[in-house]
């Protein structure tokens, strides 16, 4: 991990409230692994004070790194107002990363789709390319379309769903899992999205004895395991006495069974 000033190569509004930021940060991009995140200082000054964490969405071989974010509050509004060729201070790459396996299904919901492009691309770049399926969902067509072009270009089995039925299946990702994951295959699922979605996906995986990794979000002050602010309850199935895990250090990627789902 390191801290550096990165130049904004491109900043694009993909829809009303979703922005794709392309940064030139060669040394961080070179080290990044799928599932890791960067911590951005959204601007000078003390308000907002803390950095904001974002998953790495994509990297190219030329030192660029992309994140996609939704405009929610102060920090993301300030980020959305930045312009090309301005610089921004970033710390990264942070956290752990997804693990690959021979038969994989990536399930993303909303902005949780962001890290899955980097993951899919790196899996496709491996020597022995595993079986790979992708299920993506969002509130509506507008939101989902911010992500679909890059995934369609991968030429993989792609299943889409929206909450309002404006694109793909009208309903939840979990309803697409039986179609996408038929057969007795020993799947490994990698999931990122709203907490209830990941919890439902994890439940289905447990029923089928599929391995499942999830990407968690919490409030973060430091991102480098110094503040201990990013705790999530642990299942502690190994009886180590550890009540909490820390998202920035032990995660953001966790095996579903290590988490105490609430």
């Amino acid at each position, binding site marked *: 991990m*390191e801290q550096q000033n990165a130049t904004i190569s491109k900043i694009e509004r993909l829809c009303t409230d979703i922005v794709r930021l392309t940064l030139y940060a060669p040394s961080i991009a070179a080290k990044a692994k799928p599932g890791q995140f960067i911590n951005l200082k959204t601007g000078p000054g*003390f*308000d*907002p*004070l803390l950095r904001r964490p974002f998953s790495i969405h994509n990297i190219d071989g030329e030192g660029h790194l992309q994140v996609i974010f939704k405009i929610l509050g102060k920090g993301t509004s300030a980020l959305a107002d930045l312009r090309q060729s301005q610089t921004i201070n970033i710390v990264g790459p942070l956290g752990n990363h997804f693990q690959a396996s021979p038969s994989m299904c990536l399930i993303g919901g909303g902005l949780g789709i962001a890290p899955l492009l980097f993951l899919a691309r790196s899996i496709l770049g491996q020597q022995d390319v595993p079986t790979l399926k992708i299920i993506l969902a969002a509130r509506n067509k507008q939101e989902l379309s911010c992500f679909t072009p890059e995934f369609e270009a991968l030429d993989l089995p792609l299943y889409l769903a929206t909450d309002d039925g404006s694109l793909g299946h009208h309903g939840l990702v979990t309803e697409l899992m039986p179609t996408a994951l038929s057969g007795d295959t020993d799947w490994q699922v990698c999931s990122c999205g709203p907490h209830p979605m990941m919890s439902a996906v994890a439940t289905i995986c447990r029923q089928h004895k599929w391995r499942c990794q999830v990407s968690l979000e919490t*409030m973060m*002050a430091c991102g*480098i395991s110094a*503040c201990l602010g990013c705790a999530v309850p642990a299942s502690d199935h190994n009886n180590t006495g550890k009540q909490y895990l820390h998202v920035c250090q032990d995660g953001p990627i966790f095996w579903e069974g290590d988490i105490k789902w609430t």
Partner: protein
Amino acid sequence: MDIKTPKLAVNIGDLCIANPIMTASGTFGYGREYENFVDLSQIGAIVVKGISLQPRPGNPPPRIVETACGMLNAIGLENVGLDRFIQDKMPYLRQQNCCVIVNVLGDSIEEYCQLAEQLNDVEGVSGLELNISCPNVKKGGVAFGTNESMAHAVTNAVRKLTKLPLIVKLSPNVTDIGAIACAVEEGGADSVSLINTLIGMAISIKTRKPILANVIGGLSGPAIKPIALRMVYQTADRVKIPIIGIGGISTWQDAVEFLLAGATAIQVGTANFVNPKAVEEIRQGLTEYLVEQKMESIKELTGAAKR
């Protein structure tokens, strides 16, 4: 013109530190977390995360929330406990040649005493900082630091057991912080550090509930700087022992203000989260300021706002 390198070294009791910039407990982990960003051996002193006799799991989440120019935390003093600190964390810090000050916390005077005794002979420990913002379980949970006689008693008990430089860290959640400072000076403290976080809260208008699971938390960051500075300024009139200023220090200019108010050294807290190189940049800025002001030693700044 011949510009000499200004002297940055200061004394905290018998402890001489190479420069007055320390890290605040709970904001710098056990040091190693920052190894990719700063040269740990160049930091005046690293004050590690508060250590208790037994490991503590900490509070349920959410533990932190950002507020205007600051943040609230209710970490709940999560720490690895004394034994694991000595076994797992100290060897690394010794290797780095860091000046290490151990921040300790307890539920009773006896616990503080046991901690002090067990840290006495640990190689590489340069000093103790007592966090007296903790509740005294035997006195109905009233914080040691909010009562003059309890603050005196815990300081005095630890003083009798340790030769290590003893810093007592004061809570700002009191009517007269100067009175507490006098009590711990009288109890044998070599130095007081102030301030710890100010208690506060935040409520979500969406869920209509407090945001922190613990309901209240400690406010830190630039938002508290004017309060901390005022407390340092006032305490400087009340005690003779050196004061370590803490609270919202983010830039070298902030550090200069605290020195001028009467602090001998300063601690950088929340700023480390925002800028992991903060301590190094502050040291650099201070040095340049001294050169520009043609000062030979940083000691000339301490309390200058009063002269």
